[in-house]
């Protein structure tokens, strides 16, 4: 739910990193937190289990000063990926403005990605949101591993809706594709549509 505050000249948005378990959603936020200048970021909060799997969500507020005299603020969340945590995933999606769908590129995780993508659509529907009207990008993570599917095949599985969305190859722990996905989805929610961004997909 975007909030525009004229009194403070701020506009804020909520972006959720969604995807199956252990695909690298938290790694995205950790990299952003590590490499954004201090002035653009707040504290990274992780509600994780003892073995560092996300229990509820990770949260990182980031901001860009002065987009037409407004400070644009983005609140980045991750969801817990494990199937059993669907209720908490749903809670995190409340008021979402944009989504980064993080997919694991490895062959043996393809089914989990497809399942999670379907789950995203179902959970959005519970809030009367429609994925086709929600700005989102797809990130194909773990491209450095040996057993990965070609991007064309991942696109065939996950990015063949009426509107094809920008997608990025990524190695989240090393930062590849992390800022590309963040910047693109931020622009999409700020501008409020897909049209101008479509041409940037898969350059």
């Amino acid at each position: 739910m975007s909030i525009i505050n004229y009194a403070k000249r701020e506009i804020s948005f909520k972006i959720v990193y969604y995807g199956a378990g252990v695909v690298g959603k938290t790694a995205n936020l950790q990299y952003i937190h590590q490499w954004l200048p201090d002035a653009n970021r707040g504290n990274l909060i992780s509600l994780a289990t003892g073995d560092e799997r996300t229990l509820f969500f990770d949260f990182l507020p980031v901001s860009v000063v002065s987009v037409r005299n407004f400070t644009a603020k983005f609140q980045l969340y991750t969801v817990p990926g494990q199937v059993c945590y669907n209720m908490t995933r749903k809670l995190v999606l409340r008021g979402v403005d944009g989504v980064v769908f993080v997919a694991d590129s490895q062959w043996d995780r393809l089914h989990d990605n497809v399942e999670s993508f379907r789950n995203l659509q179902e959970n959005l529907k519970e809030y009367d949101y429609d994925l086709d009207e929600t700005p989102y990008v797809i990130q194909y993570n773990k491209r450095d591993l040996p057993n990965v599917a070609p991007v064309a095949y991942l696109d065939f599985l996950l990015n063949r809706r009426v509107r094809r969305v920008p997608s990025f190859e990524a190695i989240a722990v090393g930062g590849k594709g992390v800022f590309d996905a963040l910047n693109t989805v931020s622009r999409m929610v700020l501008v409020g549509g897909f049209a101008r961004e479509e041409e940037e997909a898969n350059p």
Partner: protein
Amino acid sequence: MRTHEIAIHEETARRIGSVLTHFLAESAASDALLIDRSGQLLAQGDSSRALDTVSLSALAAGAFSSTAAMARLLGEPEFTMLFHQGVKENIHVSAVDEQAILLATFDSRTTVGMVRLFAAEAGAAISAILTESRRRSSSAGGLDTPFHADDAKLMFRERSR
């Protein structure tokens, strides 16, 4: 895409600010945060200390929505308040309306009963202001001209290594 669902104009901010100031004075609570249920801070009362209000807002909204989900499992529509007791500091969170919650921090200078009483009053007043503000926003909300791609060419940049 959904348009801006909440627009807080100067007048709304001023009125909410005055309710929060009154609430702090009456209840003797230390801080008051009005939080959207999606986790975003909408307004805060004057406070003498620096708190990480952005993180508090996200966590309070998460906790509140989580207890609401528990309530539904028991057949309740929602638990309308949350109270966390610490050694020195306490947190009271209460429902304002379907979109917002009110968080108050307080210490031994007051009691949970006082905070609860005045939070209910403040919540009702804020709910009325928000309802009016939403009605106005839906007819004349948002920016005069929407953001364009040129406004947002440069967003986040990694700092140099």
